[in-house]
């Protein structure tokens, strides 16, 4: 059959900043931030997994705080600063968390990794030298099914040290 265009749906215009670049977009009110990032902006680092705000694979930072983009309406991000994994490195220079995840083999399939790294960044921004228990507690919203978490915790601890050394 020939597909006619789908019926038009109500839309709203929003402006937001993603990885330092301003965007003005026309979105449906029901569109999630994750869909806007992945489909409109082609930023596919954040992943859809559980779809119910449990697993953290879709974690991005909005004004520096971690949110589950799968259940966060794009409309709510209007006027805000969004950071995705694609915006974390400084050019070719990896963020210390990214480098630590490589150095400590803290990922396997990699599906949780963008969200995990951004959640860890939010943690370290808030608590620069967390205890092991604080890291475990903070990351309870980010599931990894591959690694068993041990190497992730090691990587976060190493990144905390590297950041502390950088900031003197």
């Amino acid at each position, binding site marked *: *059959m020939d*597909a*006619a*265009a*789908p*019926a038009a*749906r109500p839309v709203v215009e929003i402006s937001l900043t993603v990885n330092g670049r301003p965007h003005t977009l026309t979105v449906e009110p029901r569109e999630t931030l994750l869909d806007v990032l*992945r489909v409109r902006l082609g*930023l*596919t*680092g*954040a*992943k*859809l*997994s*559980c*779809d*119910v705000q*449990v*697993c953290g*694979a879709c974690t991005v930072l909005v004004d520096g705080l971690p949110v589950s983009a799968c259940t966060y309406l794009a409309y709510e991000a209007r006027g805000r600063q969004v950071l*995705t*994994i*694609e915006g*974390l*490195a400084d050019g070719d220079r*990896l963020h210390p968390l*990214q*480098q630590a*995840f*490589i*150095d*400590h*083999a803290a*990922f*396997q*399939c*990699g*599906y*949780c*990794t*963008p969200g995990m*790294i951004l959640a860890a960044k939010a943690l370290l921004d808030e608590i620069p030298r967390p205890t092991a228990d604080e*890291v*475990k*507690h903070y*990351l*309870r919203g*980010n*599931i*990894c*099914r*591959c*690694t*068993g*978490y*041990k*190497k*992730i*915790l090691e990587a976060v601890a190493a990144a905390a040290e590297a950041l502390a050394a950088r900031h003197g």
Partner: protein
Amino acid sequence: MAETLRVVGRPVPRLDGLEKVTGRARYTVDLVVPGMAHGAILRSPLPRARLRGIDTSRAERLPGVVAVLTAADLGDIDPYYGQVIRDRPVIAIDEVRYAGEPVAAVAALDPATAREALDRIEVDYEALPPVLDLDAALAAGAPRVHTRRPAGAPPEAEGNICFHARVARGDPEAALAGAAHVFEHTFTFPMVYHYAMEPHAVVAAAEGPAVTVWTSAQHPFLVRADLARMFGRALEQVRVVVPYVGGGFGSKSYTKIEPLAVALARKAGRPVRVALSVAEACLTTRRHAARVVLRTGVDRDGRLVARVATIWLDTGAYADNGPRVTTKAARRVLGGYRCPHVRSDAYAVYTNTVPAGSFRAIGAPQTIWACEVQMDLIAQALGLDPVELRARNLGRRGEALFDHERPLDADLEAGLRRVAAAIGWDRPAAPRTGRGLAVGITDAGAEPVASAIVRLHADGSASVHESSTELGQGVRTVLAQIAAEALALPVERVGVVASDTAGTPYDRSTGASRSTTVMGLAVEAACQEVRAQLADAAAAALGTGTGSLVFEAGRIRAPDGREVTYGEAVRAFFAGPGGELVGRGYVRGGGRWTPPPLFWEVGWGAAEVAVDEETGQVRVARYASLADVGLAVNPPLAEGQDEGAAVMGLGHTLFEALRYEAGQLQNGTLVDYRVPLAEDLPALATGLVEDRNGPGAHGAKGMGEGAINPVAPAVTTALARACGVVVTELPLTPERVWRALRRRRAEQAIPAG
């Protein structure tokens, strides 16, 4: 003396590291194919029903809908698939066999329209009485899940028995009659969901004779074979491409939703993307629930004299990999123990529930749990230390436990003593804490059929072309290391091109811990071919013989000190600016691989748990895991496999179980289905035994599954020592433990006699 290795055995950074930490790694769910439509699947609300009719006309009229697929569209193809028993239709035909089975599918210009169209499809179901668990399926006169005999069904399949496997030797009944002690226990293991974080996803295109699918499949060549057979295509007309896969654990083994996606794309006349949600992945495959009945006879010293095992595996509505799971379970329940008289019967049983298939260490966690908990109960009854009882019964290295098997290739007792020491086995435990340990062996490796191609380019860099799927286990990194070692190249000069059946050569499958061993050997053989060609080219360029050339870091040196780089040798061979040398490596079945298995995968584990007797909450405080890996090609990656498997084992030990009520899955989302979190991580120590005893390159052998097996028995027996209750049903939820504690208290309150 062991050879000196430069690259193998070192903590080389993963090849996929930069892509995965920057978000640039592309998975099937990330792909956009020009012109692609979006698929959505209508699923049966009933566990068993006759399909009296489906009216799709209102859905087809919805603007934006491209195609609606039902069984009526399958008349010109063979719509059934399944690795051993071809009982699963592309989409329900005449009958539905579980709640969640696809009955229709829509392709639309956008996902929202596709979902909206599902609501406009009218299905007329005639509800039929379902069989929802093992007891119901096995009851006399039970309705049959399959009323027609599917292709490939074994002759012994009758009623709801899908498959039967037996391991037998001697006269176990007579031996049990003469045993000093006989123990009988029944163990129950739940349905478990893999939760690979990327749910199954496919983009399919079927325009003209060519069929192309991008899929999250673990075994692209087996998917290709199924699609070619079903849709009447030659193998060369079907192309299966597997990008990075967001976790497998068996959930993406064999063929899952690819036939549906191809059928939908064929009808739509354009590419279609079908990306399942986690809730749908829960309705696609799971681990077999099991009931294991063990009767074991021992002599006065605790030596096994006879063992009779009866294993019932709930395989759900379709066989999937159930037959192989059943065959493995029948063997794996016996463990690494000597026992002269044995009969082990395993049955896969159809029920009207989600089909069960492969899951990390197929048939093993269910049966090794039963075997190992019973070993502890025997030790306890005889007043023996559990380590000592096991030591008296474990087979020795080099000993074949069955005539038709490869001899044991690991020292099972030494490993057990090592994890016991790691957990402080001989030290007194604190109040309300206990320690337990276990050992499991699995006949690993699957079919050893693989091919690899290695290309040495004109600049001296090399590409490995192979089709083992990168699921996160690090196979590309490991294969690059093996190639770099064999080619005498820095690992940075080796790339891996993987998993495209149109461009990378055959690999049977990615699973059963086989890739490092099997594909590793294929890659090594391909490198040796290249190296032989390179030697000829260099000898000609240097005007010397091939015998005394030294290969080192991309250069070839003659005895007189003159040298050429690999690139110079390649260019000299072709007498031009470019060219490349191509080597191929095959690994074939038979020969060195008989008798089976390819190798024994061994996992040892020891746990220390604390129990809160008020709430029944079990906390695993410490866990020691040990794996026999032959040689860890990349030690951090091997450790990561072991850690991940052990923590996954904590899941089915402590909280994971899919729950059904009235034929409906009750907890098929991550809100209700609890997997291990960072907070659940115990103090975890992983050890690797590396005595180069494996059949792979440099003595490597497979790993990554073994560590999941000892967790449940180690924790269950640790719990028993902590508080005196033996729980024979998993998972060890607080309620279950609390009820067991209450029963024990009630029993203790009643005066004996």
